[in-house]
């Protein structure tokens, strides 16, 4: 990605973040690192929350998008409640996830992305999510070779009657689809 492309990407990202509730506070980051220190997953992230904002300012946001880092965010909101500047950082992570997919910057097989997309497909189709179907489709989409690691738990749940292979579609699915099509796809708010 050349310098102009990175600049455009950064501009679009900031525009979307500024449209979020309290999103404009992203400009007030003081690089104190409270977010990264509060994040339960930051130790495994290539770009922790503080580094993400440092990368943004250094004009290297594309590097963040190209790594699976943001998909390690579990939405625990610890960074958000502790940030002294009031930045809703969990929402910033969501925006990074959305824009990364929209721009085709994050790998299709990134586990978090695959899980989210599989989930969304199921909900669109039936109006509800089925745990069994979600896991099966997620395995097919990502790591077929590791499928066996899901078997022991699946079997335990199945024996307890807690894994139903029966799927249910809501009665009002057609109405829901009309609503979703009317809304169109959209960025954050």
């Amino acid at each position: 990605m050349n310098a102009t492309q990175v600049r455009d990407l950064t501009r679009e990202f900031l525009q979307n973040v500024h449209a979020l509730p309290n999103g404009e506070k992203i400009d007030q980051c003081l690089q104190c690192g409270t977010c990264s220190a509060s994040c339960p997953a930051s130790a495994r992230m290539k770009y922790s929350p503080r580094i993400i904002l440092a990368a943004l300012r250094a004009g290297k946001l594309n590097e963040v998008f190209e790594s699976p880092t943001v998909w390690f965010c579990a939405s625990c909101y610890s960074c958000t409640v502790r940030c002294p500047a009031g930045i809703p950082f969990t929402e910033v992570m969501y925006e990074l996830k959305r824009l990364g997919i929209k721009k085709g910057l994050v790998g299709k097989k990134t586990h978090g992305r695959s899980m989210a997309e599989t989930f969304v497909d199921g909900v669109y189709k039936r109006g509800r999510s089925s745990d069994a179907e979600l896991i099966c489709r997620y395995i097919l989409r990502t790591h077929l070779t590791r499928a066996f690691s899901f078997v022991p738990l699946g079997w335990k749940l199945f024996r307890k009657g807690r894994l139903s292979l029966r799927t249910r579609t809501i009665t009002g699915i057609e109405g829901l689809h009309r609503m979703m099509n009317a809304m169109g796809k959209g960025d954050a708010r």
Partner: protein
Amino acid sequence: MSVTTQPVYSYFPGCSLQTTNRAYDVSSRNVARVLGLEMVELEDWNCCGATPYMAIDSKQSVLLSARNLAISEKHKRDIVTVCSSCFLVLYKANRHLHDDSSLRAEVREALQAGGMVYQGNVKVRHLLDLIVNDLGKEAIERHLVRPLEGLKVACYYGCQLVRPYGEVDDPEFPVLLERLMGWIGATPVDFGMGTKCCGGMLMTTQPDIGVDLTGKVLKQACKAEADCICTICPLCQMNLEAYQSKISARFGEDCQLPVLYFTQVLGAALGLGGDDLALGDALTPVEMVLAGNRQGERHA
């Protein structure tokens, strides 16, 4: 004599309570019945979208919640749910719709395409909040049949009931569960992990991180000599109960501990039996909440 009308709530079970976490559904309905809380399942509810939908398309995510809110409004009822994620997603969408007029206009138009209207008159509640703050101590004590004397409970909130808004309880040091446990005679233990993240979906997508985070919660609860962990979220419950052997092996110490939904612990104190609380569904030995004076047995 004054006549007060009890509010009727729309009960939103959420997808995972249909199958994997059906014990939470069964125990919640029975506890509500005993306490005289009237909950009617929300008619033809749809998935709230949970965290994954927000990561793909935030407007559609708000719309999914708006449909549920619209159905509940039609019946003039507030929504009550027991899943922390459903709670936050519905609550957040409701809040955004209230604060953002252009989003509200877009959603209004989309709902109309499906023949629905939402005017913003529904409140979203979690059953724990309703029981502790609306019913309160006296109502619980009135229905108390079998105080759980001596039962040491690690109260685990996880993330999404208390964060980010902190309006139901403190985002880092909540007390709702501890108060409730105290009212039913149990003893909350101080284990310092009540609002630390279990990893949520990371247990499936990034198992290394998931095992590490859930493991820390289990380890501290065991160290504090809790008899069980009491949870308020179906995904937390699943993570905490289903990977204990893997976690014990990883940490090189015994991290086996019964993990119950708060409605199962409360239900036991209200005199409900194992079937009413679907204790048979558990993967950990949870019958102990019905077994009487646990501490007495253990340390006699």
